[in-house]
């Protein structure tokens, strides 16, 4: 057996109140694609940050190619041949591709030479890129290419990829996988972090599974079933949501030819978005991040007003109504960004309840707030949705992501919406809580509410939606019954090929 490229022995890292990693040990072989599998909060990010020199372990050692390896900062890790593609936060929108690449290199060449090398490498690996484009104008897939090319230019021996496919269409995922296999064939190793079991089973040679900061198993994913992997990852079985049978009712929300300009320099315009949503129905809207999801939610919640005649609620035009009037009409919503958008981080849960429920729950009269009713309402949300918190007086930011998500969704559901629009309802939530949230949405639909779920998690959409549509560069494909769809068709819809697809079906 070859000597491993990177060995981790007993790595431990504690933060106040949480042990992020406890005694983590495993090896990554030469030319191996090694999966690091675990739920949100299992300690994957902390582990990776230790390898990349962003965080120092409290205990434990690492060795690279047999030599001791203890990077004090990322540049040391880079010099040792470790490169990393981040999930978030590592590109600079206002800078060019070449400048972004240069920032990730130890000793970048002169700008003309660098541009040429970017072209060479991107062609070699099938990742076309223009070095002089401004990164903010690139699609999510192209942005990821920038990160990968940045890493490849340094001839890394170990490439770390953190949730790389969460921003890609199924077709783009295939391109990425062939690039990764090419790298593997060149003898480079890849540490591949994900919680998507299918991907790991088709791509990775070995998988290390983390749960609550500890290694629970190391296995060969192609010889392990998805179910086994899931159980190792989650540790407990949980009830899968159950859809109740129902017949779609009368029209609840009708959007017709909705177009809105992009809200900022790097936002997405909405282009001629149209769909119908009936009572008792769940419409799932998929799409790669940054294709107009936030903009669509803002146009439906009333944060951004649209031209007359574009948004109708129960037959009445609400296009020019703000959030308060739409809520009174029964249209409620929950945005993706929990802290800062759906909830105010430094305000208490009671106050965050008032944020959307002030009128529907009668928490305000003559302009004066009734704090005891507000406390009562927050208490009900906490109890009904099992929000883990010391009380309703704590600020929203003190809650974990999953618990705050339960509060935010629960706050809307308890107000008995007639139409509920949610964006990424289970993003960053552990599996059990995600199942609970999905079940609550299905129950609501069964009771006659119309639900619009915007999500980047295709499995989730397939599980709970009656019909599916995809957003691509601000355009919405026609909605199709989920039962008729295959993964390939979904991929085409997400990639923007819906017109062709429709022609094909009808022709």
């Amino acid at each position: 057996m070859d000597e491993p490229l990177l060995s981790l022995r007993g790595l431990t890292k504690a933060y106040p109140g949480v042990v992020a990693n406890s005694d983590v040990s495993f090896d990554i072989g030469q030319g191996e694609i090694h999966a690091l599998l675990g739920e949100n909060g299992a300690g994957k990010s902390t582990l990776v940050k230790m390898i990349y020199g962003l965080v120092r372990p409290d205990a434990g050692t690492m060795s690279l190619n047999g030599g001791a390896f203890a990077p004090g900062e990322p540049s040391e890790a880079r010099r040792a041949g470790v490169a990393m593609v981040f999930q978030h936060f590592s590109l600079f929108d206002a800078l060019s591709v070449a400048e972004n690449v240069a920032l990730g290199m130890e000793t970048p060449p002169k700008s003309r030479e660098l541009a040429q090398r970017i072209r060479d490498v991107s062609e070699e690996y099938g990742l076309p890129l223009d070095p002089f484009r401004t990164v903010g104008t690139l699609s999510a897939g192209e942005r990821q290419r920038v990160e990968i090319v940045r890493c490849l230019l340094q001839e890394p021996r170990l490439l770390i990829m953190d949730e790389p496919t969460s921003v890609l269409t199924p077709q783009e995922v295939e391109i990425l996988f062939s690039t990764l296999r090419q790298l593997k064939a060149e003898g480079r190793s890849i540490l591949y972090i994900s919680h998507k079991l299918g991907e790991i089973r088709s791509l990775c040679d070995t998988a290390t599974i983390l749960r609550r900061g500890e290694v629970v198993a190391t296995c060969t994913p192609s010889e392990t079933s998805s179910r086994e992997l899931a159980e190792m990852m989650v540790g407990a079985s949980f009830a899968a949501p159950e859809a109740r049978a129902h017949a779609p009712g009368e029209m609840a929300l009708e959007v017709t030819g909705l177009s809105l300009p992009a809200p900022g320099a790097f936002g997405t315009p909405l282009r001629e978005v149209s769909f119908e949503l009936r009572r008792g129905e769940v419409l799932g809207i998929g799409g790669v991040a940054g294709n107009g999801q936030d903009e669509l939610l803002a146009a439906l919640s009333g944060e951004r007003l649209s031209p007359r005649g574009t948004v109708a609620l129960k037959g009445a035009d609400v296009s020019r109504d703000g959030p308060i009037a739409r809520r009174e009409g029964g249209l409620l919503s929950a945005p993706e960004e929990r802290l800062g958008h759906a909830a105010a981080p430094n305000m208490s849960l009671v106050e965050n309840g008032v944020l959307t429920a002030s009128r529907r729950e009668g928490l305000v009269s003559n302009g004066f707030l009734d704090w005891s009713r507000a406390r009562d309402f927050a208490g009900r949300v906490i109890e009904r949705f099992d929000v883990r918190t010391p009380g309703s007086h704590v600020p929203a930011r003190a809650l974990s992501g999953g618990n705050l998500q339960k509060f935010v969704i629960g706050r809307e559901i308890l107000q008995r919406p007639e139409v509920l629009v949610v964006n990424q309802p289970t993003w960053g939530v552990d599996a059990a809580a995600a199942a609970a949230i999905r079940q609550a949405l299905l129950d609501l639909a069964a009771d006659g509410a119309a639900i619009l779920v915007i999500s980047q998690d295709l499995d989730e959409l397939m599980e709970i939606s009656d019909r599916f549509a995809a957003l691509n560069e601000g355009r919405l494909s026609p909605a199709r019954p989920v039962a008729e769809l295959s993964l390939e068709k979904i991929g085409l819809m997400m990639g923007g090929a819906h017109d062709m697809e429709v022609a094909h079906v009808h022709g």
Partner: protein
Amino acid sequence: MDFGSISLVLLVASVMVSATPILLAAIGEMVVERSGVLNLGVEGMMITGAVVGFAVGVNTGSAWPGFAAAALASAVLSLTFGVLTQLFLSNQVATGLGLTLFGLGLSALIGKPYEGMKSPTLPKLDLGPLSDIPVLGRMVFSHDLMVYLSLALVAAVWAFLKFTRAGLILRAAGENHDAAHALGYKVVRIRLAAIAFGGACAGLGGAYLSLVRVPQWTEGMTAGAGWIALAIVVFASWRPWWVLVGAYLFGGVTVLQLNLQAAGAQVPVAILSASPYLVTILVLVVISARGVHGAPASLGRPFHASQ
């Protein structure tokens, strides 16, 4: 009205002199803002520079030590802002205001004994044949060294930001501090360095005011120049050469209104003396109506490297 007494040559020459303090302060603040920090304390740093420069100039009998001391003092002062906002994570707006109030008090205290004194000033350079060019020579080529240094500083800042790796890293910190941190750059250190540079520039600007432009020390003598410098950075959309344009434009307005006052123009004095501020407001409104472009994305946001 007597426009005849306003000579174009002298006008242009005095625009360059009157624009220099604002130019120095604004180019420094631009660098600070490009690193992602909004320091509203420019006024306080300028006036501290003015008083320290003047005091040291008087005591040493030469202007240059005054400039050096002014730059140093304002840089040190700016670092109090830096420590509070970068290490203690205080609100940048409030701390910048505090810096201005603090600087105004400090300068009044230091300057008391120097009121009414005369200071050494900078000699006009003799650029030989250049200064002898008719008209242009007297307009552009017969100033003191600081005027040309301030122009060189604009060019240097431009080249630094555009061509050097350090400049790229500074811009990166201002665009997205989380990403810069994830790549291993020391955001806080970069910003502290930028803040100190901005402080030094503001100090030089203040000293130019008290040692060359006026040249005298009076309490509150910057009279909003630091705030105008802040406005110029917005006007320039954070681009060095536009900072130069902005500063000379405002220098022009100031000189023109002074000349009009002196010439006894039939315009109320209140409007003339308020004109630099009114023009600043006007420009800010026009710029924002057109849509502000080029603001660093992390400007004014606090950075805390958590986990």
